[in-house]
């Protein structure tokens, strides 16, 4: 206010007092601009966004204007929230309000001359924020630089951080890892899932989808981002530059160091890992494409073959039973009742303990592993939460894997002892092939092929059912499939367990292949066990609902004679039958066997239903 105006104001005021003897009344039309007459208030304010409101719309807390005129009353702080209520509400819980005690005018610099931002809002936001947030990376990053160039798709500060609701935690992955990763994963995905926008800007439209197919993406999607890399861990928060830019963290030269932040001790070839590949793209990722195709083919062939076998077998057994019941035919045997119920040992205690451990480890692996494979389903989240988080699930998965690896190694040792009962030094190769293809061996031989052909003929009513020795061809397949499975699933699992170490052996893209193999082989194993193995051993009408022999270890002489006649005859001939006669299993063993068996069986079947639901409905 100029001195001249002051004098005028005081003169007017004194004149008024003199004339009326009263204090100021509203009847006197004094304009604020009479005193506040600078350009800023006179024209600047009139042309501002608030120009259509009067001064007292904001400066309300006057008791008396006359006191104000003689500077005895200074108006209190104004509240922008009176009009901008919703914004104020958001702002009060924002970082700038809670931690920095910013007021509206600290960003909206001159509130009296504030004008609406014409043109590009994103540029205005970037310019305003970078007045304080001045690190080069804010303005020079891929996004910031694109904003300044006028790209309307790209993210300005407020697109990620909010405008008045900037988050009240420090979005630094160094201090608030969980919040930071949740925050930027969400914000990055919000735009990068928009395919049209990505195509428009020449960016991969499916990067988010493919990221979610990787281990990082799956664990993150399950809700546990602290232990896996999110978007910003590789691409950084602000200095997000394309791969071709040498300053980019994902430039091939910087990639090893970038991966090494979380994976210490890696070989440079670790960086050949594909962070979000499309394994269906045979041109860009031929190794992954072929791996996926091979695994898909393996699953298809295995299930088409065994499910057909299963259905044909079930039909034949069921139909034969029906005919026998209809005609009143009862099966006969050459034994007296007492002889028939004599128990014959089929599995040793070691076999049984091994199978129990196998079941436990197998379910352990399935329960802790499949939620990762089907991470976006509601059941996956529920299981992982029940296990106490993805890190716990991973821990249990590894424990179960160790049990399985232990069993596998012990089985290898037993195979060796079977092939060379007195050790290789004493025994040499003598008798090796006889044992390998003999009746006690699980190695497939010509007899199995003949039995298979006979079985198929029997399915179609063209012959009698074959009789089996100690091991049937499907039992041999079950056993040998574990060998293949262990190499595929175990090898890939160990690789994924120690990716840093693995990088010293093979390049990073092998981790991608390992992920595909581990995942698909797991599906093959689980579905095979829960459908084919369960059918062959438990659900076939002659054994339905369950055969507990793997837990009790023995069966009746009559059963041995009926289903494995050549084996019965061999044991009789070799005089071994008497040695295999054992007592009837105790009631305790039977109850435990039945409970454990049923629990496993029904759990497996339930899991199959969940998988089927997932395939068709999730």
């Amino acid at each position, binding site marked *: 206010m100029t001195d001249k105006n002051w004098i005028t104001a005081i003169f007017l005021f004194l004149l008024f007092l003199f004339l009326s003897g009263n204090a100021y009344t509203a009847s006197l039309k004094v304009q604020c601009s009479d005193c506040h007459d600078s350009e800023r208030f006179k024209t600047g304010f009139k042309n501002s966004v608030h120009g259509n409101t009067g001064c007292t719309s904001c400066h309300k807390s006057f008791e008396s204007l006359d006191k104000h005129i003689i500077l005895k009353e200074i108006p209190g702080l104004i509240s922008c929230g009176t009009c901008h209520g919703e914004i104020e509400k958001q702002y009060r819980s924002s970082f700038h309000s809670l931690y920095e*005690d910013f007021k509206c005018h600290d960003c909206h610099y001159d509130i009296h001359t504030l004008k609406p931002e014409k043109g590009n809002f994103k540029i205005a936001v970037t310019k305003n924020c970078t007045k304080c947030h*001045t*690190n080069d990376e804010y303005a020079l990053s891929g996004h910031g630089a694109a904003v300044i160039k006028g790209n309307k798709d790209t993210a300005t500060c407020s697109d990620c951080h909010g405008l008045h609701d900037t988050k009240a935690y420090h979005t630094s992955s160094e201090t608030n890892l969980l919040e930071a990763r949740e925050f930027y994963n969400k914000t990055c995905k919000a735009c990068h899932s928009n395919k049209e926008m990505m195509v428009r800007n020449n960016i991969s439209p499916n990067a988010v989808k493919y990221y979610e197919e990787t281990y990082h993406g799956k664990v993150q999607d399950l809700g546990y981002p602290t232990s896996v890399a999110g978007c910003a861990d590789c691409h950084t928060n602000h200095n997000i530059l394309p791969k071709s830019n040498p300053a980019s963290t994902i430039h091939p030269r910087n990639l090893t160091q970038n991966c090494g932040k979380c994976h210490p001790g890696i070989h440079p070839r670790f960086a050949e890992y594909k962070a979000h590949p499309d394994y269906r793209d045979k041109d860009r990722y031929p190794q992954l494409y072929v791996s996926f195709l091979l695994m898909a083919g393996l699953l298809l062939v295995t299930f088409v073959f065994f499910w057909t076998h299963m259905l044909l077998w079930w039909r034949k057994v069921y139909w034969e039973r029906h005919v026998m019941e209809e005609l009143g035919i009862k099966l006969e045997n050459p034994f007296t009742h007492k002889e028939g119920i004599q128990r014959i040992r089929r599995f040793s205690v070691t076999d049984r303990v091994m199978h129990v451990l196998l079941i436990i480890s197998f379910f352990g692996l399935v329960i802790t592993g499949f939620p990762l494979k089907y991470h976006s389903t509601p059941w996956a989240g529920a299981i992982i939460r029940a296990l106490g988080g993805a890190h716990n699930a991973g821990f249990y998965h590894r424990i179960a894997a160790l049990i399985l690896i232990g069993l596998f190694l012990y089985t290898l040792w037993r195979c060796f002892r079977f092939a060379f009962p007195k050790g290789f030094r004493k025994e040499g190769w003598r008798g090796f092939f006889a044992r390998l293809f003999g009746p006690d061996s699980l190695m497939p031989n010509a007899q199995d092929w003949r039995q298979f052909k006979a079985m198929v003929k029997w399915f179609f009513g063209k012959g009698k059912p074959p009789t089996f020795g100690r091991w049937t061809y499907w039992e041999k397949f079950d056993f040998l499939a574990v060998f293949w499975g262990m190499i595929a699933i175990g090898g890939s699992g160990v690789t994924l367990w120690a990716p840093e170490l693995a990088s010293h052996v093979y390049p990073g893209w092998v981790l991608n292949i390992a992920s595909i193999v581990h995942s698909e082989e797991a599906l093959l194993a689980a579905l095979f066990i829960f459908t084919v193995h369960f059918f062959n051993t438990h659900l076939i009408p002659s054994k339905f609902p369950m055969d507990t022999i793997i837990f009790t270890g023995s069966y009746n002489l009559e059963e041995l004679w009926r289903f494995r006649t050549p084996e019965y005859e061999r044991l009789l001939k070799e005089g071994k039958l008497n040695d295999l006669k054992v007592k009837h299993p105790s009631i305790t063993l039977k109850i435990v066997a039945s409970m454990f068996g049923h629990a496993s069986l029904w759990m497996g079947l339930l899991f199959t239903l969940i998988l089927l639901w997932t395939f068709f409905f999730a």
Partner: protein
Amino acid sequence: MVISLMEVKNAAVIDTMSYLECMDHRIPGSHCIALEELDKRLPASFPNKSQPVIFYCESDRCPRAGLAYEKAKLLGYENIYVLEDGLVAWKRVGYEVETIQRVKRAPVISIKSAKLEVLIEEKKDLFILDIRPEDAYKASHIDGAKNIPFYMLHKRLNEIPKNAPVIVIDENGKRSFLACCYLINNGVKDVTRLFGGMESMGHKEKKKG
């Protein structure tokens, strides 16, 4: 709890931040006694050791109120409280804060630790202002840095050159902004702050002394 202690038991609510921060924003009716001055000023202002005292900090990440608790305990105060999560908690519930003398906010350039070396190299007359408490400064500091703790800044303003470039360094980057604004408002022309403060420096560039 704070309000009932203030009203019923005449508790003294004490802002342990610097004078400038406290005058800028504080719980209404609270007293500005910086942690560093607590030993002298607390007994002088509140001689009755049985009077409840409530200490608070700027935020939930500040240890000053907890340290003030320890000091007050040694001074013999009997009823000591610490406002959990500090002023931020107060604001979160929706309570107002009081401003006695606001430090007008100004745009402040910040640089990350990696660029500090470049800045030191480029600007030969760079004035490195370390606003951390004396003991933190003594434990380790950047070579050539001058220590004027934040609670003394308003008293020792004349020690800061107005025409030379100044970089302000605090503990973790949370306090230097306001200090910079204060310097700008008082005529210091070229003011920068170190993003992340001393914590972002690691150990290699610090100097014991």
